[in-house]
């Protein structure tokens, strides 16, 4: 089956306030989708709802992932089924090394799939390989998760984790925000290297800039809780040129 994610007329909100007002989206394997839109239109909410964050209530609609009702899965089971969320603001976990954090994650996912834990040596080799893949040269992995990281380091760490977990569906929530051009290139290269015919990416971004490096197959504009416009990669350029007022006025 080529279809990975199907969102049908999704309504969701927080504390009784509706944010998503009927989102429809289909993501097939091998595709890269970009979701753009002004601030406060529900981009991050959409990412959180797909990942299963409990503070958001889904009031109606449907989300199918690999043909299964995704909304019935817990947060961790969604992750174990291959959904990865690159956070806009990755949280610090003092005293927990990235190595230990990733080893726990990798082994819990393996356990879910009925596999034995990865032996220590194999795991460390995998870490080195993925570090090379996403061009992380520093000893980032010896440090505590995100503790004292710069904005760029946090985002690189998200991409590194994505490489380690090899998701089927990766959602990157404004991973480009606050990055200088070098960090942006590393993040984009990471995504490009991880692209495969059987996985998919949803890249949420405020600016067109990232899409110079990650070429999307589809671009969607989210506005006031709905996808109001979809198109090819040229839509991003058009948006950049005309600004979001163009959407508002339409």
């Amino acid at each position, binding site marked *: 089956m080529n279809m990975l994610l199907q969102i049908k007329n999704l309504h969701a909100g927080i*504390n009784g306030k509706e944010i998503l007002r009927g989102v429809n989206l289909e993501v097939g394997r091998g595709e890269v989708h970009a979701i753009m839109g002004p601030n406060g239109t529900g981009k991050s909410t959409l990412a959180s709802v797909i*990942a299963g*964050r*409990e*503070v958001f209530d889904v009031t109606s609609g449907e989300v199918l992932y690999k043909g299964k009702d995704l909304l019935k899965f*817990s*947060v*961790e089971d969604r*992750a*174990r089924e291959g959904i*990865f*969320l690159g*956070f806009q603001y*990755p*949280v610090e*976990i*003092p*005293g*927990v090394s990235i190595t*230990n*954090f*990733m080893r*726990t*994650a990798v082994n*819990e*996912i393996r356990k*879910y799939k009925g596999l034995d834990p990865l032996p220590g040596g194999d795991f460390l080799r995998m870490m080195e390989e993925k570090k090379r893949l996403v061009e992380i040269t520093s000893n980032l992995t010896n440090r*505590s998760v995100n503790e004292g990281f710069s904005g760029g380091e946090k985002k690189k760490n998200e991409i590194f*984790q994505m490489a380690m*977990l090899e998701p089927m569906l990766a959602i990157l929530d404004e991973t480009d925000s606050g990055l200088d051009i070098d960090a942006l290139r590393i993040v984009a290269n990471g995504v490009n290297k991880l692209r495969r015919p059987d996985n998919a990416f949803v890249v949420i971004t405020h600016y067109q800039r990232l899409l110079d490096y990650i070429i999307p197959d589809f671009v969607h504009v989210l506005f006031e809780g709905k996808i109001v416009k979809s198109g090819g990669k040229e839509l991003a350029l058009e948006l950049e040129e005309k600004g979001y007022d163009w959407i508002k006025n339409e």
Partner: protein
Amino acid sequence: MESDANRILDEVTQGDYKYGFVTDIDTEFAPAGLSEDTIRYISRKKNEPEFLLEFRLKAYRHWLTMTQPKWAHLKIDPINFQDIIFYAAPKKKKELASLDEVDPELLDTFNKLGISLDEQKKLSGVAVDAVMDSVSVKTTFSETLSKHGIIFCSFSEAVQNHPDLVKQYMGSVVPYTDNYFAALNSAVFSDGSFCFIPKGVRCPMELSTYFRINASNTGQFERTLIIAEEGAYVSYMEGCTAPQRDENQLHAAIVEIIALKEAEVKYSTVQNWYPGDKNGKGGIYNFVTKRGICKGSHSKISWTQVETGSAITWKYPSCILLGDNSVGEFYSVAVTNNHQQADTGTKMMHLGKNTRSTIISKGISAGKSNNSYRGLVRISKNAVSSRNYSQCDSLLLGSLCGAHTFPYIQVENKSSIVEHEATTSKISEDQLFYCQQRGISTESAIGLIVNGYAKEVLKQLPMEFAVEAQKLLSLSLEGSVG
């Protein structure tokens, strides 16, 4: 949102104690109740010299004049000392040359705890003095140790074989007049460990004792004495798990450490006694007096403790820094869950010049528990140019638990520096979500976060202990969810 996070925390933190089982071994009891007759019975049973009986009786008579202290932040049900059996020893008491001769049931108990003596012996090179209900069952590696002139044996053996050392040092750091529970212990102590490192000797292995309370309704009164002569070094580990019981059990131990000139003693504890059930029924009362004296110059005593068990913990491993340039350290992780109560900390008494002390305390509270840090830093007039650094952090899981900090600081000279830092934090919903999004279960996530928080202390533990302690931290907070 807030209440949701609390609900999750409550669910995963209300675990049942996994080490609840009872070993069925023939036990010989003293008659219940406390009197001079009981004390004479214990002393006679143990074939003790006269000076020890006198010490016990003096302590008992002093204890009668005292009342139970009330200053700690603890709610303690009255203890009926007449109901307590003060001495219990496994009946089959004979010399054991090898592990084969140890009661198979006893070995099985250790195996259930994952601390097989055999494995310990073979793999880790750790000498184990396993104490089960007051009398030492087996002392290993004593031959290797004796080559270096190190004495590591049960307290009773030390009384028989090295009475002069016992007489010289016992009660010199914790006198029987010290406090209510110390007086009680001094009167009725049954057994414990004794360790002597002679001048200039670096103990070649970690010394380890596993304590285990086993007989029902029996108070456990351990006594440990560690002496490090000039330039000696020893690392000592004490670890405990007790089977599940309904009645409260009293445990009032004493540990005394003496470090002479340039000696160093590292004392590590992992304490996991039965904490009582989810409703606060049962559990061990852990009222312990631990104190070391840095008697000579440039000596060092370091306490590291991971406290996860007991219904009530009342414990302040302390250092008397008498020698000039001596160093005292206290590293502590105390976890309380359900209805557990802990009032723990340290006393650093700076008496010598240029003395230094470090206090790192990490409290973790969950359920409806209460966790207090209580610490005294006293720098006397003569302790010029001394330094103390204290850091007391509290981590709260859920909204029904309590964390308290009671620092006492007394500085009597102007050339010393005392620093105190304190923080209180909660595990955030953001941290949990981040972990879960990577496929990590809530239980493991809490384990990770808590271990990260306690890392500064855990890294002080000897390798053999660190892994066990990490598991224990997660275990005591997690439980049966998932």
